[in-house]
């Protein structure tokens, strides 16, 4: 159960029903929504982009989440936590979008299983295509954990699963990334390529 004032970071309250009675002063919902779009659309779109994997899908996801939240605004009593509700809705919509384009994405095949070199840190820029190819739930866990810095308990609430499942998703995702994010080792030589 959360309290008003967005104590759980950008994703706000865990659900729209669980609001504190000590809510802030009444705010015009229409004005609050317009202000949210004007002021926070960049931040929201960035999260949507990471969750969805492409700009087009991110725009669709965020737009749908905004309208869905607006239509449920009578249940959103703490309007200052609107952004959190929108982010929560994005995650839930993402999991429902079974027929979206990314579900039909076809990975180009297994990446070569080359050995990692001890102590090497992969360079930035290689990871995003690999993150994009993760299954939706694994990608969501990675984004929520490493971009939004949410605790496992909160991620589990958002995904509607146990913390054990979150740990499992994260472990599998990291294992896949660790396997692929490597500096290839020259065949038989051990020299860096």
């Amino acid at each position, binding site marked *: 159960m959360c309290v008003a004032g967005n104590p759980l970071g950008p994703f706000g309250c865990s659900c729209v029903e669980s609001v504190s009675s000590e809510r802030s002063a009444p705010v015009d919902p*229409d004005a609050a*929504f*317009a202000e949210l*779009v*004007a002021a926070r*659309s*960049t931040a929201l*779109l*960035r*999260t949507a*982009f*990471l969750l969805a994997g492409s*700009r*087009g899908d*991110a*725009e*669709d996801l*965020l*737009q*749908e989440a*905004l*309208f869905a939240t*607006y*239509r449920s605004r009578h249940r959103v009593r703490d309007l200052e936590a609107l952004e959190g509700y929108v982010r929560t809705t994005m995650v839930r919509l993402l999991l429902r979008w079974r*027929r*979206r*384009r990314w579900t039909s994405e076809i990975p180009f095949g297994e990446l070569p299983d080359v050995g990692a070199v001890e102590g*090497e*840190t*992969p*360079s*930035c*820029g*290689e*990871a*995003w295509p690999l*993150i994009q190819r993760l299954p939706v739930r694994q990608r969501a866990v*990675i*984004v929520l954990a*490493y*971009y939004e810095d949410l605790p496992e308990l909160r991620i589990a609430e958002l995904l509607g699963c146990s913390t054990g499942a979150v740990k499992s998703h994260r472990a599998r995702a*990291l294992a896949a*990334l*660790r396997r692929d*994010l490597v500096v290839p080792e020259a065949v038989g030589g051990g020299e860096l390529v």
Partner: protein
Amino acid sequence: MSPDVEEVVRRELDAVSAEVTPRPEWTAAVLTGLEHEQAKVRRRRLASVVAAAAVVALVVVVVGARGAGRPQPAPEPDRTTRHQMVDIGGRSLGLSCWGVSPAGTPTVVLETGLGGHAATYDEVRADLADELRVCTYDRAGTGQSHAANSFPRTARTLSDDLAALVEAGGLGRSIVLVTDGFTALSGAVFAGDHPELVTGLVFLDPRGPHVSRAEARALGEPAPGEVELLTELRSQYRTDSLSRNGEQVSYPASEAEVAALLDAPGPAFGATPVVVLSPALGRQALPPLPGAIRSRWWQAWQADQDLLASESTSGAVRDVPEVSGSLAASAPTWVSSAVREVAGLER
């Protein structure tokens, strides 16, 4: 856990997200959509108050009697501004809709010409979206839409896709269809196959079903010393190169489908209002042919436009002055005015 991978992921997500900023047109569309949602809420509140007052008045004044069997109005279709992929049976078409309109008014579908882009309708859409719901879509194999299952495409397969989109996309049971150029053919088939859906038709500089044959005939037989263009055009018709367009739509097959529809006895479009907008300077857009051939081409083009209008008991051809090219982009107010006319909003 592997701290190095986690750190890379963290840095990567920050770096990738930092490059994402909202497109101004997307933000504007979202704000417009929210405004429409808000307007809808206000309308519903007002309607509730009015309905409550009306009920009280009815109870007091007309105790008892008649209005019991009055049918309820159909629920208002979803008028949210949105861009979505609509599944039409194993493949999807990209659909974009704007605007709101009172219940009972039609949805306007703006069909681009072959190779056209929905952006050519931007001004028309902006003009209409305050009064009517306006939609554009990507035909199969264009924009975000999936490719068709079979080729070549014809006016009827394009029309079938549109019918499936109207149904699956929830565009309602009343459509004003605006076509551009060649897509008059698919629009005509759509109106012929689904008269119950079509409230009005606006054909922008339509290409009729007899044009190709008339143009080929006007070119005549090869003559020694003739201009090279004549030879090229004759070859174009002989090899049907027009059908090797980006959407692989067959001209001869489409023209045959529409000719069968229009050449049958009686008005093909019945009483459905039809407005044909014709660029008055369209003749200038014709290829630089010898004068006599050019005249016959222009006459054939105009004859088919007259024919399309005459297939409705409420059809009209309007010449748009000082325009030779795309009417959607060059004469948007003429287009939106014609839409209002066939939608019954303007007389």
